[in-house]
């Protein structure tokens, strides 16, 4: 049996979500008696392979992949290349394991839950014709059956999902597992990428606003900005606070429309789903859609002038007051402790 962490490698640094998937793979493997593999796919696959071994993968399957666009430090490939790569790795590795005299081993393929994965997970499942469970927060596997927990109904309900088969795919929500080093001696297998027919599709342009290469799902501290921050003065206060508490800025739907911030920063059911150490909600009322994207945060602190705001129902600490008074005073207090 094998638990395979599928890791798209398009950046200079390995995402922490990839390390979380590796960690979850080692946990599932140790309880099911399986082996951990890392499938590294992308232009930086070779570079990241040693790190995968450091996090418990005894078999490294490395496939360099062509990039369709490279701009401002962000590499992107069209999803079809990744689906073809996963398909090829499954075929090749199964054939290798068969020639070693072993029967085809049951395989659990674990993905992270980034937009990149969401782009390809369904297509991978259809291509391999195997069960897929998306966005799980916990799972168990015995080589045949997989039982996974996944939030549903805008994260208000936990759904227990069952799948069975010799190959099963799951994507794992980011921020829930602490990456845990488990160095092992690994063997590396290298594969040539298949010739992908892109069916006429072209990646024309990558719009990566300067400095906007923040990946919120990776951030330990997130400052969520809602309607309560209404102008440039407020935006400046938030920026100062972010520097002082090492936070990354996220937005609610209100600011998707205001144009004050980049759309990439949207957190919610229709944006990024995050689970940082701290989510500091500034002037966010706490709509169902927004909460679905941040309710798994380890600690939530909310500031809102409306004591009835629904965000206070899930905040560990709620502060009732005017942001435009509180933020300058808080910034002053932080500056004086750090001075």
């Amino acid at each position, binding site marked *: 049996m094998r638990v395979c962490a599928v890791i798209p490698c398009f950046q200079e640094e390995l995402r922490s979500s990839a390390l979380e998937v590796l960690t979850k793979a080692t946990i599932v493997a140790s309880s099911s008696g399986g082996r951990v593999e890392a499938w590294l796919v992308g232009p930086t696959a070779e570079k990241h392979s040693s790190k995968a071994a450091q996090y418990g993968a005894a078999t490294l399957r490395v496939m360099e992949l062509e990039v369709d*666009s490279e*701009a401002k430090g*962000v590499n*992107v490939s069209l*999803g079809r290349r990744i689906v073809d790569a996963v398909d090829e790795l499954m075929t090749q590795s199964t054939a290798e394991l068969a020639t070693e005299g072993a029967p085809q081993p049951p395989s659990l393929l674990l993905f992270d839950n980034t*937009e*990149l994965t*969401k*782009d390809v997970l*369904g*297509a*991978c*499942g259809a291509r391999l014709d*195997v069960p897929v469970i*998306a*966005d799980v927060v916990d799972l168990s596997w015995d080589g045949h059956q997989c*039982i996974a927990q996944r*939030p549903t109904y*805008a*994260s*208000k*309900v*936990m*759904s*227990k*999902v*069952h*799948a069975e088969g010799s190959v099963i795919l799951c994507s794992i929500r980011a921020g829930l597992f602490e990456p845990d080093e488990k160095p092992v001696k690994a063997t590396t297998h290298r594969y040539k990428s298949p010739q992908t027919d892109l*069916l*006429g*599709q*072209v*990646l*024309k342009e*990558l*719009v*990566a*606003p300067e400095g*906007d290469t923040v*990946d919120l799902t990776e951030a330990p*501290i997130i400052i969520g900005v809602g309607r309560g921050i209404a102008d440039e003065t407020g935006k400046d206060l938030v920026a100062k606070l972010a520097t002082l*508490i*090492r936070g990354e800025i996220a937005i609610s739907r209100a600011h998707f429309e205001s144009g004050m911030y980049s*759309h*990439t920063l949207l957190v919610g*059911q*229709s944006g990024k789903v995050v689970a940082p*150490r*701290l989510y500091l909600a500034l002037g966010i009322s706490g709509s*169902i859609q927004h909460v679905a994207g941040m*309710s798994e945060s380890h*600690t*939530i602190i909310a500031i809102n002038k409306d004591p009835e705001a629904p965000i206070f129902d899930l905040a*560990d*600490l709620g*502060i*009732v007051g005017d942001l435009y008074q509180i933020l300058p005073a*808080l910034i002053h*207090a932080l500056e004086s*402790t750090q001075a």
Partner: protein
Amino acid sequence: MQHARVLNSGKIQNEWTSIWHIQTEAFFLYSDMSQDRTILVCAKETPDTYSDLSFSGGSVQFSNPRPVLNAYDASALEEALVLSEAHGFRVHVVMIGPEKASETLRKALAMGADEATLLTDAPKDADSAVIAKILAAFVEQFGPDAVIMGRQSQDTDVGLAGGMLADHLQWPWTTNAIGIRFEQEAFWVKRQGDSAQEWIDSPMPCLITCSNNLNDPRIPTLKGIMASKKKPMHIVAIDSLPGGDALSTLAPSTTIESLTPMPERAAGELVEGDLETLVEALMKGLGSIPETGVGS
């Protein structure tokens, strides 16, 4: 489609419920499409998950008992209608559901779609994989120039059906669209990625899944609602699709074993008072998180 229009233009058109009974014979006329280009919007009916939720005997009830058009599919339909207005596409909406779902599908016609098909008698507990196989059979028969659909449904938040459908069809796909243009005989899709936006150009036919941040779907006008009653709605049993016998007995590869309320977060502390009190509480809260660097 001419035959279907004839069927709807006589006496029946005043009695739209009768359209329910225009059965599969109309379906085989899809191959006789006019030269109009067609966008097919795949839509789903969901519970109103934004209304209050309660549990009873392991199942979930919502305070609004009326199902709704999945918000993400509503955005997909809105975008298809905008493209239709600018470039003359016909917009056809397909939905898998019970006959009662025709009420929700009728809303899509009221928003402005030209025609709709309801695929009934789906296998029990169909999951994304089953839905994608049924839709693939329909799309292959129907032959649209593009499929536009929501990137996920607002009830399950699974988000797999689009990619599965694209792979079955062997069509190029783009997910999580936040902007769509039609230029030089191709769809230009702006996709929101993890840390950047991508402009991806796909020739026809192609599949696009939409974010619900793409637009604000229009509310049907009274005129639209009246007009929708005269628009063709085909009710097609899934077993009458090509390969239908196998489709109607597909077993889901994933099953939901139970639904339980999400563990509630313990109620936190609510602090009110003067500015000094508030800032003090905040400093203490921020200081308790090592990653902020405040406590150190």
